[in-house]
């Protein structure tokens, strides 16, 4: 049978009713048999377009070929050439708009499940524990990385491979950034993230936690204290609020707080873990990106009866990944589209009791071709609510940027970096990921980390 006639293998998943009440991983991963069959669908294109869709240019046909030939260990090694954190990317990348969107099989049928195969190979490599690293000749150069999120970790991996001594400064008590505090356990198990981080440590990357750069030290001090270059990967960790009345009532969370309490602090295991997190019967999540989906599905697992996604545009404009949207729907998340809150009402004790919303319609396309949401006059209505999670986006955290004189920022507070080298306005100081682009995806941050590592490596060779 021709490769394009074999149907794409579905991902085995936990039953939607059962999983809505536990924090175990939803997608269970391919078996060996599924992986081999799926890998055999790949046409092994001479000019693989899939690679052009991958921000870190993983050697996609090469690792898939190894799976098809049942050389799983080898597959994971090929993956690691370009991607230091493949078990994470295989799980959280929006493949439908990246590698898989370019797959030639996708023109007439379904593209090869590249993400699922990446996950399979990476998980296999992790379990086999034979992740021996080739030792690189030390360069004698030291690089400080600020922030242990996807950008910083990817940058660290490539710099370590190039022989540089790397130290990561992380403000929280664990490394991982959004992989640890933001993306929930049921989508990205924390032991997987930890294993990937431990692999970096085995490569010689030093990770210092509890280090708030901007307070305990600064970029200039790091440069003065013997670091030859600095990479800033501090992300977009400043939560935006709606600025509507009632937002400071008890029961209103930023998505960052809600997810940090649940994921990083393991609030879902309270009181075995000391950090509480609570949801009422009715939970409104404001926004429709991946962070909103994660918050809504988390609220459900914490015991909420009704969880609503409230979004002022329509389904087609929702920025969340298709798969997350489908999973949320299967689990019973309710969507209130073309709806936007105007105020939150509280009781006399200062707790949320309801949300007042306006209905919207989509107006004429604007200059960018996007149809703007327009409120319908007099359409106000009230929904009873105990908990509200605000997930309308994040901005750049200013702790590092405000403590670094001479660092050029744009008007939104993001760092300005050279698009090729990712060097900032300060010589030897590089930046990448959400702190440069604004809130984006894990894989784009990793791509920026790799690009910066190349820029830093080139810079260090001139010194």
């Amino acid at each position, binding site marked *: 049978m021709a490769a394009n006639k074999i149907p794409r293998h579905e991902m085995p998943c936990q039953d939607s009713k059962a999983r809505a009440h536990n924090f175990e991983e939803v997608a269970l991963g391919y078996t060996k048999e599924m992986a081999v069959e799926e890998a055999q669908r790949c046409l092994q294109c001479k000019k693989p377009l899939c690679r052009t869709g991958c921000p870190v240019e993983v050697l996609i046909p090469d690792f898939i070929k190894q799976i098809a030939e049942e050389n799983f260990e080898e597959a994971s090694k090929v993956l690691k050439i370009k991607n230091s954190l493949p078990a994470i990317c295989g799980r959280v990348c929006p493949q439908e708009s990246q590698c898989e969107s370019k797959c030639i099989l996708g023109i007439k049928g379904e593209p090869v499940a590249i993400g699922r195969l990446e996950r399979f190979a990476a998980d296999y490599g992790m379990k086999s524990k034979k992740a021996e690293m080739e030792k690189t000749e030390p360069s004698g150069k030291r690089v400080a990385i600020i922030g242990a999120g996807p950008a910083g970790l990817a940058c660290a991996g490539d710099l370590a491979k190039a022989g540089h001594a790397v130290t990561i400064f992380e*403000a*929280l*008590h664990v490394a991982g950034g959004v992989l640890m505090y933001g993306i929930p356990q049921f989508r990205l198990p924390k032991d997987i993230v930890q294993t990937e981080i431990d692999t970096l440590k085995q490569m010689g990357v030093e990770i210092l*936690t*509890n*280090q*708030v750069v901007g*307070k*305990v*030290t600064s970029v200039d001090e790091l440069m003065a204290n013997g670091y030859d270059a600095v990479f800033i990967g501090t992300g977009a*960790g*400043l*939560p935006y*609020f709606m*600025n509507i009345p009632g*937002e*400071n009532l*008890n029961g209103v*969370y*930023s998505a*960052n*707080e809600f997810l*940090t*309490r649940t994921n990083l*602090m*393991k609030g879902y295991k*309270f*009181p*075995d*873990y*000391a*950090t*509480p997190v*609570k949801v009422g019967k009715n939970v409104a999540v404001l926004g429709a990106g991946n962070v909103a989906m994660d918050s809504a599905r988390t609220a459900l697992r914490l015991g909420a009866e009704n969880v609503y996604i409230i979004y002022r545009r329509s389904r087609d404009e929702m920025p969340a990944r298709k798969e997350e949207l489908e999973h949320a729907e299967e689990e019973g998340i309710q969507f209130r589209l073309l709806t936007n809150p105007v105020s939150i009402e509280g009781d006399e*004790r*200062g707790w949320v009791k309801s949300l007042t919303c306006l209905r919207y319609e989509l107006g004429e396309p604007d200059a960018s071709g996007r149809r703007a949401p327009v409120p319908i006059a007099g359409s106000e209505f009230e929904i009873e609510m105990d908990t509200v999670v605000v997930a309308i986006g994040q901005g750049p*955290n*200013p*702790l590092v940027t405000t403590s670094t004189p001479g660092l050029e920022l744009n008007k939104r507070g993001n760092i300005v970096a050279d698009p090729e080298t990712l060097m900032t306005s300060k010589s030897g100081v590089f930046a990448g990921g959400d702190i440069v682009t604004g809130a984006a995806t894990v894989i784009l941050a990793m791509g920026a980390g790799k690009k910066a590592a190349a820029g830093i490596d080139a810079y260090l060779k001139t010194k």
Partner: protein
Amino acid sequence: MYRIVKKRLLAQGIALLEVEAAAVAAKVEPGQFVIVRVDEVGERIPLTVMDYNREKGTITIVVQDVGYSSAIITTMNEGDAFQDFVGPLGVASEIENYGTVVCIGGGLGIAPIHPIARGLKAAGNHVISVLGSRSADLLILEEEMRAVSNEVVIATNDGSAGVKGFVTDGLAKVLSEGHKIAAIWAIGPMVMMKAVVEYTRPLGIKTIVSMNPIMVDGTGMCGACRISVGNETKFACVDGPEFDGHLVDFDLAMKRLAFYKDEENRAKARLECHHEGGHH
């Protein structure tokens, strides 16, 4: 790990701990705070800094047994260590020579007022400290405060030491002596800070308070600590913790402190149950 090198019980349920944290000690300034986590399953809680020693690389904190984590911390001993100890966090106090200033510390609030009073005195101010507690046996750090103040007024609710009444009664005594006060720092429970602010508002004396809302990360990434100041939302961990007391919405801040009352009680009760069972 961050080891406790010295412990002293200041009063029933109130412990002073000197902790090894050289990087924090090298940078901390009066008015800043730290976030600590006891162990792997612990929560992150903010604690104000009572003292620091840059040479020894230590930070001194004072903790009162009021909840789950603070109950554990007050039973920790010399040689024990914190899993995590993050800082310095928040904006430092604006220390300069104002003239005559009053530093008000209520209960545990005397600990964080200590480095501020010392800084203000070193900057050339005439520092009058007003220390308040429920009774004489709960009054902490009196000797240390005398060492960093020009004058000290004590107020106890039951009159067992100094003026009988609240810190506002102590402040009234200071004002009755005809001092021209340039600024007041007030740190203590929110009800106390609110009372001081309401007292000084009609007098038009600049009053700075140090807000102590619920915090998680302490670096501005979550907004758990948000308060309303002059009708604007501020994050106490990065914009504060010190604010112009006359602009703070204390009623909102006090309601927000009660967010997790039920859960705190549950955790504390569980801890006590463990103690009785002898597991801890």
